[in-house]
């Protein structure tokens, strides 16, 4: 009762003291909410893509595996064998076919040409693994001059004259050879992003035969044996629970004697299987480090708020020395005086904590909105998603409790100073 009386009379002072705690609590909430929102945004984006997906390649294994996309090692035989592993749902080879030009016949003896696109030689499974769907047409048939193209490639000769299913284009490879290709399917625009996007989404997908021509020439006696081989494989586990099993089975197979890849890879590199889950975990780990760091800063600002309370409480105690003396003269025990000031700092802590929560709710909204805007500016695959405000309720409680505790702690020393006063001296204080 008395504490409230004094706080009402020193409105501005109380308000200024509150601000320290309010900002501290609010920033803890804002930081943790922003962190939570980003985390769930990433997780959500990830779920648009198969969380069961993985890349198989060669590179260096270890705690932080590295892929190097330099040599071709995986054969059709390997693809076939991996496909039959119990925890593997599908596997698709990826062979990069570098193109210089895409050409189109435009009337008699007239050609229109555009610069090259990314072309992957693969199988129908690739579409499944990359979560891509055909908007029209069908998938190509192995051995035929057929391709599936993306929406972007369909519009490569102009938005007004897009390519349609059934059109014929000509693809000029880096080796100078030009191959005819019939467009049999056009892909839907994908809204997801995944680690495969970072390998750049394919513009054209084609069958290995007749477009892909990376092979080893291995001398078996005097006969040159040609084997088609790929740089990487994309695979998918049967379900999210079997991602690790699939990973292990693939690695076991590749390291075994049945695998062609084991025979073709150079001795210094290892087989590497990087799962989407692994990347998600890495991102999560980095996020949590950043979050911990910023939360620590926010907590420090809360601490500074506490120092502010202590400071003002000391000033108040000194200023009210004669009042303290008077209260002692009319029967206040030391405990009463101690309580009076402790209640005051506790009330400041509680009010600051509550107001901080309210400000934190509003501020979080603002921060997430800001993050959303910058995501839109990033463009690319990110631009299709928007971040949802995801509060971290436990941090509301932690921040408020820390705020209140700091309020009380900050009041302890000033309150003790007040309670220890000699009434005779205090009464004489001017």
């Amino acid at each position, binding site marked *: *009762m*008395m504490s409230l*009386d*004094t706080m*009402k*009379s020193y409105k501005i002072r109380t308000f200024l003291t509150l601000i320290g705690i309010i900002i501290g609590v609010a920033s803890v909430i804002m930081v943790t909410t922003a962190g939570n929102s980003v985390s769930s945004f990433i997780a959500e984006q990830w779920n648009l893509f198969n969380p069961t997906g993985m890349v198989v390649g060669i590179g260096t294994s270890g705690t932080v595996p590295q892929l190097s996309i330099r040599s071709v090692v995986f054969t059709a035989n390997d693809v076939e064998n991996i496909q039959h592993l119990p925890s593997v749902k599908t596997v698709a080879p990826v062979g990069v076919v570098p193109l210089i030009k895409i050409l189109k016949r435009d009337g008699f003896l007239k050609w229109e040409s555009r610069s090259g696109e990314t072309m992957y030689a693969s199988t129908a499974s690739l579409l499944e693994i990359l979560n891509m769907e055909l908007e029209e047409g069908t998938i190509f048939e192995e051995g035929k001059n057929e391709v599936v193209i993306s929406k972007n490639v369909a519009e490569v000769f102009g938005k007004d004259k897009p390519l349609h299913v059934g059109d014929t284009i000509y693809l000029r490879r880096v080796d100078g050879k030009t191959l005819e290709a019939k467009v049999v399917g056009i892909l839907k625009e994908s809204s997801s992003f995944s680690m495969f996007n970072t390998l750049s989404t394919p513009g054209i997908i084609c069958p290995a035969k007749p477009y892909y021509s990376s092979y080893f020439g291995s001398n078996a006696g005097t006969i040159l044996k040609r084997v088609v081989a790929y740089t990487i494989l994309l695979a998918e586990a049967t379900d999210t629970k079997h991602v690790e099993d699939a990973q292990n089975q693939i690695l076991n197979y590749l390291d075994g004697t049945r695998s062609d890849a084991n025979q073709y890879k150079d001795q210094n590199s290892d087989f590497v299987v990087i799962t989407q889950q692994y990347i998600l975990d890495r991102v999560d780990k980095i996020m949590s480090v950043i979050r911990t760091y910023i939360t620590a800063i926010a907590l420090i600002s809360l601490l500074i708020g506490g120092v502010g309370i202590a400071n003002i409480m000391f000033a108040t105690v000194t200023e009210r020395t*004669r*009042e303290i*003396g*008077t*209260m*002692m*003269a*009319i*029967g*206040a*025990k*030391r*405990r*009463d005086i101690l309580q009076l000031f402790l209640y005051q700092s506790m009330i400041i802590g509680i009010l600051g904590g509550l107001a901080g929560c309210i400000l934190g709710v509003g501020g979080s909204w603002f921060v997430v909105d800001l993050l959303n805007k910058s995501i839109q500016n990033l463009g690319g695959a990110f631009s299709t998603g928007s971040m949802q405000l995801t509060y971290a309720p436990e941090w509301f409680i932690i921040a408020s409790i820390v705020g209140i505790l700091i309020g009380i702690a900050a009041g302890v020393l000033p309150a003790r100073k007040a309670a220890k006063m000699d*009434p*005779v001296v205090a*009464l004489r204080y001017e």
Partner: protein
Amino acid sequence: MSEYVIDINSLTKIYQTGKTDFKALNTVTLKIRKGDFVAIMGPSGSGKSTLMNIIGCLDRPTSGTVIIDGENISIVSDNELAEIRGRKIGFIFQKFNLIPTMTALKNIELPMVFLGGTKADRDQRAAELLGKVGLTNWATHRPSELSGGQQQRIAIARALSNNPSIILADEPTGNLDTKTGEQIMELLVALNNEGKTILLVTHAIALKRFANRVVNMLDGEVSEDI
């Protein structure tokens, strides 16, 4: 129970100021009967304030015994001393010493708050006392909105709230004009007539006439007791 409400025997109070000791009171013996109106007079440094602080249970004697309304204050704890102070002593100060952030009514209630009891009882008692000092209409005013005389009346009401046996008034008219001072003194006389023991500490010789006993202090000793 002794016939004296204040029974002081060879009270000595020594203050340690740095390396030198200062003897503020030197073997003072003073006995005051219940219902007395005693003026304690003397120049600055005579020890009258120290005596007042000890009788008011704000300070303890260095040696000698001080018995206030049957309680030997030399042997009680800090908490008990605060309790005795709240229950048996009513303070009236020169500068009124009201709590500026509280209304008149809450100021009067404050000593009762420290002793406990129900809010309803406190409110009733405070309202009664407000009437007794003639300020019923000023209950919700803060000290800054009251005149000096009114503030001192509130202070007197506050001093009475726990129905103490002794009223200690330290220069109660010091900050008031003569006329208002007279009124305050008359109020004290009225309280004395109701049976309260009143100790008045003052420089003002003019106030002597309200007392039925005058104790003169000089250099830490009682120089004259009329």
